[in-house]
């Protein structure tokens, strides 16, 4: 597989949220606005790129039986770094994302890529795979966040487009499920017509 294909597969064809349905907890939990979605997506991208690179570098040193716990420790270390850095420099975003920052550890996307890709492939492909998948995840979260923000408060990234109150339900919990459901349905339709 060419590296470009390796990079772009995370966006549409194997998008972790829309197609593989992985990492749905943060995808639904933090996407009350486009900015929050983007922040969460970039934090996950950093963890994904770092853990994929480290796992592919030391894959030959890890005994097969303890590989899952070792991967989890590697991932958890990077999550702690994100947690501390974000708390220091972006306290507002940290407060908005709250519980979901430590929960990147159990995001199936991160462990899934470490196990399915980085533990078998070389360093360069693993790094690109992590970057592609991470940005695909960030893309999905930003899109969902933008849709919810637009329908809920008539704005995207805080810039107001529509005057008035908007549909509050899209900012609240039910809107996350319904919004993601229709986004996936839309994507399925586009894929079918291609």
């Amino acid at each position, binding site marked *: 597989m060419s590296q470009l294909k390796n990079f772009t597969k995370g966006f549409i064809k194997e998008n972790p949220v829309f197609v593989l349905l992985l990492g749905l907890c943060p995808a639904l939990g933090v996407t009350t606005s486009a900015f929050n979605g983007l922040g969460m997506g970039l934090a996950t991208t950093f963890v994904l790129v770092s853990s994929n690179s480290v796992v592919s570098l030391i894959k030959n040193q890890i005994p097969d039986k303890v590989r899952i716990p070792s991967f989890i420790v590697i991932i958890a270390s990077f999550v702690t770094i994100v947690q501390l850095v974000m708390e220091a420099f972006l306290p507002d975003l940290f407060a908005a994302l709250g*519980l979901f920052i430590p929960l990147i*550890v159990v995001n199936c996307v991160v462990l899934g890529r470490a196990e399915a890709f980085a533990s078998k492939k070389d360093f360069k492909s693993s790094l690109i795979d992590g970057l592609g998948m991470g940005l695909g995840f960030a893309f999905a979260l930003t899109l969902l966040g933008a849709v919810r923000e637009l329908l809920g408060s008539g704005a995207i990234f805080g810039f107001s487009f529509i005057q008035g109150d908007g549909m509050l*339900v899209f900012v609240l919990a039910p809107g996350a*499920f*319904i919004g993601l*459901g229709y986004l996936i349905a839309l994507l*399925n339709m586009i894929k079918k017509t291609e």
Partner: protein
Amino acid sequence: MEYILIIIGAVFVNNIVLAQFLGICPYMGVSSKVSTSVGMSGAVMFVMTLATVVTYLIYNYILVPFGVTYLQTISYILVISSLVQMVEIILKKVSPALFQALGIFLPLITTNCAVLGVAILTVQKEFNLLEGVVFAIANAIGFALAILLFAGIREHLDLMGVPKGMQGAPVALVVAGILALAFMGFAGLV
């Protein structure tokens, strides 16, 4: 009274799945049949309660005295994953019947963010040990309630004519959204 408030709050008002978005993966993954949902709910309740007790002790008697609370994430996930392994081994030996029922769900629980989430929330809300246990059990009941309702609806959904683009995940997500809407009716109860 305090405990009743914790229970009502965790089961209905801040339902762990429908209001807090924790444990969505098993919620979507194993909810196609009512029987598998029952097994998953049992396993979640078991592990969640145990994990909350163990992580509470670790936080208050190891992490806080040594001033290393920033290691919370790493230590919690390690403890939970080894706990799940241990429970699996013990259950296999002590109660093969229970192992048969819960067995395949146990490994999945390590990556169930609800377990880690409840353990972290217990610290954030500054519960004591007993309150933490009640909180964990109540959250597990909330998870069971949400997944059983959802599985019941999904079994009926299989018999319905769903438009092509909406089949599978999209319609399930919309159903979950409507369930969440229904649970919003409990807001303000506590």
